[in-house]
């Protein structure tokens, strides 16, 4: 059974239809790559799943039920890792995590254990007391990931979590995500980097102009393109074949 079921989501901003009839599902222990050019509707889709944006139409089912309002306990099953470095630079790593954990009503020993576990996972335990403003971009990205994991969510929404980081930090984040996948977490991962999707994704959803234009495994997508273009293509070729080569805003 899918732990996350996205059904016919639609969202428009004025005359612009950002997301149009988007549907896909995600199972525990799996990673779905949500791929698309700039402005394709990836972030709006993630925002609707996280409850940040109200869909005009459609529904998001978390373990078979829709979220009812801001304080629905079902939100505890979702962890969001936004594209922005959503951290308080002036606070220490520990104080950041203490705050984000408390938003999920974690406290006392449970919060301390969660903070220690998250920092251990992203290899920042030794910098727990340092202010985030002293961190490198890669360290901030890893802490951004840790903040989304504190409350042990079943579903992790990762919106381009490796933007602007060096190969070492990116590799470390990949390692973290593979660990989480093995632990049974369901991961929805938006990215522009094809090699990331190739390495991590069990299934790839390609979205363009707000619509899902492909939803398949990497092999499935490659076979589909091979049938048209001939020969086995890499994901980038598949992506360009599906979305076209015209520049986007």
């Amino acid at each position, binding site marked *: 059974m899918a732990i996350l079921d996205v059904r016919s989501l639609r969202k428009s901003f004025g005359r612009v239809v950002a997301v149009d009839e988007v549907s896909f599902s995600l199972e525990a222990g799996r990673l779905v790559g949500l791929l698309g050019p700039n402005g394709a509707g990836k972030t709006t889709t993630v*925002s609707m799943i996280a409850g940040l944006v109200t869909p005009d139409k459609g529904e998001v089912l978390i373990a078979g039920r829709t979220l009812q309002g*801001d304080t629905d306990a079902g939100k505890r099953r979702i962890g*969001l890792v936004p594209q922005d*470095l*959503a951290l308080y630079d*002036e*606070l220490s790593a520990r104080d950041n995590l*203490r705050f984000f954990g408390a*938003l999920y009503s974690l406290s006392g020993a449970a919060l301390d254990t969660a903070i220690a576990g998250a920092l251990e996972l992203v290899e920042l335990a030794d910098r727990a007391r340092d202010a985030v403003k002293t961190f490198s971009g890669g360290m901030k990205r890893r802490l951004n990931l840790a903040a*989304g994991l504190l409350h042990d969510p079943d579903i992790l929404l990762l919106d381009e979590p490796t933007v602007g980081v060096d190969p070492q930090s990116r590799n470390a984040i990949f390692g973290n995500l593979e660990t989480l996948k093995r632990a049974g977490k369901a991961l929805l991962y938006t990215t522009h980097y094809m090699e990331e999707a190739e390495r991590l994704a069990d299934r790839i959803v390609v979205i363009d102009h707000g619509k899902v234009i492909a939803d398949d495994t990497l092999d499935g997508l490659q076979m589909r393109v091979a049938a048209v273009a001939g020969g086995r293509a890499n994901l980038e070729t598949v992506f360009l074949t599906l979305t076209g080569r015209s520049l986007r805003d």
Partner: protein
Amino acid sequence: MTPLLALVRKDLLLFFNDRRSVIVSFAVPIAIASFFGSIFNGPSRNGERARIAVVLVDQDDSTISKAIVASAQSDPNLKVTATDPEAARTAVRRGRAAVAVIIPKGFGEAAGAAFFGNGEKPSLDMPYDPSRNTELAMVRGVMTQHVMEAVSREMFGGAQGRTHIEQIAPKIEASGMDAQQKQLLLQMLQSVRRYYDRPEANAQAQNRGGITMPYTVREEPMTAAGTAYNGYAHSFSGMGIQFLLFAMANLGVEMLLERQRGLWKRLRSAPVSRLTLLLGKGISGAIISLLILGVCFAFAMIVFGVRIQGGLLGFVGVAVACSMMASTFGILVAALGNTPATARGVTTLAVLMMVMLGGAWVPTFIFPAWLQQLTVIVPVRWAVDGLDAMTWRGIGSSGAILPSRILLGFAAAFSVVAAMRFRWEES
């Protein structure tokens, strides 16, 4: 820890981690309020009274003009220096003196003649610094008194007065006035002449007074229990409120920055109600505001002897109401602002206007009447009124009820508008 407590704790940590904010919020209001307090508090017990710099030019050199100069030089409100007309105008132009008083040639003679109404009034020239209009008005009033005194003294007891009476009698005889009126007027002048001719008249001439103010003023400062007015109480109220409004406007701008940096997405994705999110901001803002007011007044009490003479409960009530008003103002800034940069500019202007209209900088009596009426819609006015009532005015805690209620009303209005206009959707 509950989400609400976590939100409050986080904002307090952020505030105190930002040294610049802390300095601006605590040290700057104390420094500015101390400065304003020293101005509005008047001269200290041992201090010298501030006197208006006036340059006097006596081109007449008559008995009357000399008396005017002597009288002005002994006036405690004026700091008089005598010079020539060109130097006097230069002194005023360069801002070294507020006003110059030039007594022209023939002033004494003409003023004496004009005193009995049969001569043309001479003019006293007063070149002044246009940026110091208030001082001009004061000098005009003070000089009127000195001129009237000098001219009347001379006309009723001096040589010029006697000569004038000798000259005026034949003119009355020759006039076409009614016979009975003419006789009465001549009898009066003869009486004045006999009065001058008394043997002791010359001896007393030096001590004769002219026309003086026919009353004195007994001034009574209406302060708490007859204690001396402490101008620092008012300046610390005004500056304290100004800077807590700035701090809370900054809180609103910080909320917009949180949105810009994606932090609001994280907050909104957590199972926390909208009310809790806003309440967290409101409570942390109110705590910071209370701390600012508390620290400002603690400093004023320790260093400048400001006392809460209207009731501690009332003072706390007004302070809490002020803090809630300021805190909700910050949330309103976040609700109405588009970007941090535009919100910062607009709120700085809004706070400065509110503070100015609220009477925190200058007394509201200098405003036009319509503007004075308008200040009732400015929360700062009620905050200053409430804190004044609880400090130097010494009105009991009952005096805190109206300002506190109105401030809480502003807080409620700000909250409602903020809640209605707050952008909850995160795209």
